[in-house]
């Protein structure tokens, strides 16, 4: 909240005046109230590898993460530029591969990459959109200095928390929202449905039939799948509900088979179609990739979109943005050492204590090393893993992240956060919901915000001008 130690940053001024007039005991009680509210909604989170705590609430902090209109405008420009570049990159990498021919990124990075799907070669999805929904993870290190941590171009989750966090805040502090004008996020499901429908294939119904495909109730994000289907007013389906009927993917309903035009799938590529990918998958739909390649259905996000958010590709994002947009990237990239490179590996091994090391295909904060927070033993164990499979890792410096306040027992205290704004791409526009999911490290000084690693969330406010 404090920009440079001289009082709160400008966007927080009005909130701080309000906060000063509140009774601290009442605010602490509100935190408990929020928890009850979340339990009632049923918004819980399954943590992989923690059987006993299968359904847990993500801790919620009642102090919002506040962003000024001006800051947001810059962020939004940067995100839009990045999402356009990602879609251009995906089209290129599955067609002429100009970026490889131009030598701007090494061929090995694609040719040895499992996220590059040969089955997508020559496929042009309706409207040229590959990433219908993107969740770009962003951190701030200073005034107007934003870094992208990850692009999350496969199936970014967390949007239900963005919506529930706001609803909870509106419910608990109605007066606050009439005092401070905050831009709305509640129309996200409506926009999502509109954006997906705008990507329907030729010959779709009017309006196009949209559905959400979930792996089922055992998936950690099942709540979000059913929540989004419900909020959009569309069917939530599982693989066994769908089959190929007259060349299209249709769902069984009480009225017979209804063909689906746009499928928002929350299943990984590998499980999508046993005919085309993993033959053992029981979650997918046999033949859906064929229907897709015949142009009979839109799959969001496109299969193979993951090649753009691979952590090794990430390190080339500044080049990718420049190659396809002709502009310098507005948002910065965190400097990244690719451990496949011998010099980089040597440097990383020397400096493990200062670096964050991540798996190239990892997510959710699993399998990563945060050097400054790790013990000597942990570092030694990680060094062994790194030496065994260097190409599996990238390393980044720990950034001097700015902090935002959270409410603790002893009052407000600074904590590190990241922000995941949600981006909707359709042929005519790129729409970024003002705000997003703010994740916060609850331990003082911690840099790990992942909910699977004990992080919490807060409401994100973009102020109206």
């Amino acid at each position, binding site marked *: 909240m404090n920009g440079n130690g001289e009082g709160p940053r400008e966007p927080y001024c009005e909130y701080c005046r309000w906060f000063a007039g509140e009774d601290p005991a009442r605010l602490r009680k509100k935190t408990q109230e929020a928890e009850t509210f979340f339990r009632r909604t049923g918004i819980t989170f399954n943590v992989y590898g923690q059987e006993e705590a299968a359904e847990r609430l993500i801790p919620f902090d009642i102090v919002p993460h506040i962003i000024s209109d001006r800051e947001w405008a810059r962020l939004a420009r940067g995100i839009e530029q990045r999402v356009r570049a990602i879609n251009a990159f995906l089209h290129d990498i*599955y*067609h*002429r*591969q100009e970026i*490889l021919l131009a030598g701007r990124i090494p*061929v090995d990075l694609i*040719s040895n990459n499992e996220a590059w799907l*040969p*089955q*997508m*070669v*020559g496929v042009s999805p309706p409207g040229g959109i590959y990433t219908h929904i993107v969740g770009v993870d962003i951190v701030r290190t200073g005034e107007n200095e934003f870094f992208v941590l990850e692009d999350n171009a496969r199936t970014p989750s967390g949007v239900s928390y963005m919506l529930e966090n706001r609803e909870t805040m509106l419910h608990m502090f109605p007066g606050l929202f009439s005092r401070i004008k905050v831009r709305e996020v509640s129309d996200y499901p409506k926009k999502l449905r509109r954006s997906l429908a705008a990507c329907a294939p030729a010959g779709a119904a009017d309006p196009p039939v949209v559905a959400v495909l979930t792996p089922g109730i055992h998936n950690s994000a099942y709540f979000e799948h059913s929540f989004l289907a419900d909020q959009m007013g569309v069917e939530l389906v599982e693989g066994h509900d769908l*089959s*190929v009927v*007259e*060349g299209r993917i249709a769902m069984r309903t009480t009225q017979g088979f209804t063909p689906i035009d746009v499928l928002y799938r929350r299943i990984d590529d590998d499980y999508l179609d*046993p*005919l085309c990918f993993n*033959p053992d998958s029981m979650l997918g739909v*046999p*033949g859906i990739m*064929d*229907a897709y*390649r*015949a*142009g*009979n259905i839109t799959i969001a996000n496109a299969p193979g979109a993951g090649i753009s958010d691979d952590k090794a590709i990430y390190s080339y994002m500044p080049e990718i943005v420049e190659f396809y947009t002709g502009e310098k990237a507005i948002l910065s990239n965190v400097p990244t050492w690719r451990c496949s490179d011998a010099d980089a590996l040597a440097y990383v091994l020397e400096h493990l204590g200062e670096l964050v090391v991540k798996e190239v295909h990892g997510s959710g904060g699993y399998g990563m090393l945060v050097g400054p927070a790790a013990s000597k033993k942990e570092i030694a164990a990680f060094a062994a893993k790194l030496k065994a499979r260097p190409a599996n890792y990238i390393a980044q410096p720990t950034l001097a992240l700015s902090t935002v306040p959270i409410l603790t027992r002893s009052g407000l205290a600074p904590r590190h956060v990241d922000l995941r704004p949600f981006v909707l791409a359709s042929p005519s526009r790129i729409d970024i919901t003002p705000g997003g999911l703010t994740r916060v490290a609850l331990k003082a000084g911690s840099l790990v915000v992942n909910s699977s690693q004990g992080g919490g969330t807060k409401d994100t406010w973009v102020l109206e001008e």
Partner: protein
Amino acid sequence: MRLRITHRTEYAYDGPLAYALQELRLRPKSSHGQNVISWSTTVDGGSKELEFHDQHNNHVELISFNPGGRAISVLSAGEVETSDTAGLFGRHGGYAPLWYFNRITDRTRPGPHTRKIVKALGQEFADDISRLHALSAAIARQVSYLPGVTDATTLAEEALEAGKGVCQDHAHIFIAAARLMGFPARYVSGYLMMDDRPEQEASHAWAEAHIDALGWVGFDISNGISPDERYVRVATGLDYGEAAPVSGITRGTNAESMIVTLQVQQ
């Protein structure tokens, strides 16, 4: 040469099928050295769902079997005008990048036997094409043509070790070795008109390797020649799996019998 092809595949099942989807890669592509004059696929006991072109520009038709059925037959027939291009297929085209054809697949993973056959070739060759012809001849010498020993899942290395196999195994071994030698290589499934008879035992398979100076060049290892005007290319892939005439899933019954009748004639 104008070739008339009739290819019928009949499946019979022990019990009623609950659900089955099959991808057919049976339609020849018009390309260098061949022009498809007419072609049709007829399905009895199922329906055509859709068609598309895959990453190798193979024409793929997806068919579903009638639920509860016990038999299905697929008739693929047409006429193709061919010419002799001395096995040369020309420059690489399409969106699948050349480096893709260096990928190792399960069926074409090189092992000690593949490495041995490559090493035994030596380096004494005037050019790439003579090296690859020598490879083809070495494979034909070491792996005698004998149907019934191997099947569609046999690996190149296994067939090489066994010393017996069919055209599919020859092609896989050639592909594995050629990639090991640094050449992009691919599997070709198609038809060959045997000179002495119209009835053919099965559809044929051979391999193509990419040589910088010449582009794609075909090698029919089993017959020791490069394809001429008696050959019709139908589908290509990294190995049999990507070029299989029929592949898919069936649910609800176990055993099946398959009868293929194939005629190729002028």
